[in-house]
């Protein structure tokens, strides 16, 4: 299984030599591909149509305020190759913009809406970029960013 993963990672790396920053095998069934944010759409098109990663599992974002970046990770499962791939990219925190991957995997629609709402990352090309979970009149910073402070008092008075 690891052999297959390594082959896939190397294939992606060699196809996009200058765009893919890193393609490695984290462990069994976990391929991690890091790309530059400008080229995420073409890499996604390639790995979905050519490599066969067709089943979107999750989209996560991680906020790193010290480094001034937000990392967006797409997790994709392949129903034919039966392995799991993480497509990572980092976007600047000051201007959080990313190409939406809904044309490639339509299943990431709601995930991207959630990321937009919780991290303020705006996905260009998303058909319906609105809030999802929070109330309509929500105001304030995106709540899952690290600079959002919880206002609830945890101690009992």
């Amino acid at each position, binding site marked *: 299984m690891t052999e297959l993963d390594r082959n896939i990672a190397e294939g992606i790396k060699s196809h996009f030599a200058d765009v893919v920053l890193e393609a490695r095998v984290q462990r069994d069934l976990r391929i991690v591909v890091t790309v530059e944010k400008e080229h995420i759409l073409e890499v996604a098109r390639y790995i979905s149509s050519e490599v066969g990663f067709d089943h979107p599992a999750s989209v996560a974002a991680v906020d790193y305020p010290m480094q001034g970046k937000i990392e967006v990770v797409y997790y994709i499962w392949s129903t034919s190759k039966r392995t799991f791939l993480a497509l990572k990219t980092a976007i600047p925190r000051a201007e959080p913009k990313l190409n939406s991957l809904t044309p490639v995997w339509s*299943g990431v629609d709601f995930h991207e809406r959630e990321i937009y709402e919780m991290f303020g990352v705006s996905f260009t090309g998303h058909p319906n970029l609105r809030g999802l979970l929070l109330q309509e009149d929500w105001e304030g910073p995106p709540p*899952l960013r690290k600079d959002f402070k919880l206002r609830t008092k945890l101690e009992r008075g």
Partner: protein
Amino acid sequence: MQVSWGPQHPASGHLRFILDVDGDSVLNLEPDVGYTHRGIEKLTENRTYLQNIPVVERINSYCDATNTVLGYIEVVEELLECEVPERARFIRVIMAEMNRIASHLYWLCLMSISVGFETMLMWTMNERELFLDLFEMITGARITYSALRPGGVRYDIPHGFEEVATKYLNHFERRLKDYYKMIFENSTFRLRTIGVGSISSSDAIKLGLVGPCLRASGVATDVRKDEPYEVYQNFDFNIPVEKAGDAYARSLIRFHEMEESVSIIRQALRSIPEGPIRKRVPLVVPKGEAYSRVEAARGELGYYLVANGTDKPYRLKVSTPSFRNMAALPYITRNVTIADIPAIYMSLDLIPLDIDR
């Protein structure tokens, strides 16, 4: 005409669909979720790994607590790189499968009431009660167990559990036959579900459906087989797959999954080894990131954990099955009647708690 279906509606649960209807037929459906949003992902960033166990359990507490926690435990253990005693793994599997049955029974109750069938609602609740009793024997709680820990489980299975469990499982298998006769062979239920909300396998993959919804469309994926966690590789079980992809196929998949779970529990009870149930693990998780996948009752449940070397997670992203299955809802509810909406909604087994987190 726009009809608001929920959040206060007999069959909607805590979510809302905005339906564009023309007479009795639905033109478009727009899910409006978030009425039970508790911000669990944010809460976990302010609590230690141990304190997070009851917190993440609340993601889907009243159906599927064990499987929900199991995913979290898996991802923490992957970063801790700790060995888990064999007996603990067996207990985890027993609890996970029991919870799968309880969750599917809960689903069957909701499914049958969504087509207006109160009898099955009451019957399934009776048998679910037995499984909750078994949980009470093991963990002392009926719904939210908080029984799994990194490095093992908290409770060993008690003395005399095996006899009671075998008795209940025998009874449950007999009742499953009754269920099949009562609902799956019922002409009216078949009329209401066959061909309703069908989704092709390519669409299902593209939209990222998981679990029984995906398997009903003819895609045989199950994390328990693809990427065996705990001790699932030791057991002999099938993955039921259907071709049609409609509400009836999804129902049938869940029904057969209950039978498979009974067989897994029996095998686990037969081959459970003796030994310790828990190992000490450090409170601090080393720096790194991991993604764990478990097969919860509703499908694949993914946890993405970024740890920064403290005793609290830096970021914990939960990818819940209901959230992913919800993606199918706008697609398969075009040009159906209002009467089909509850049947489709329940056949996808969407739990608002699970969607909103």
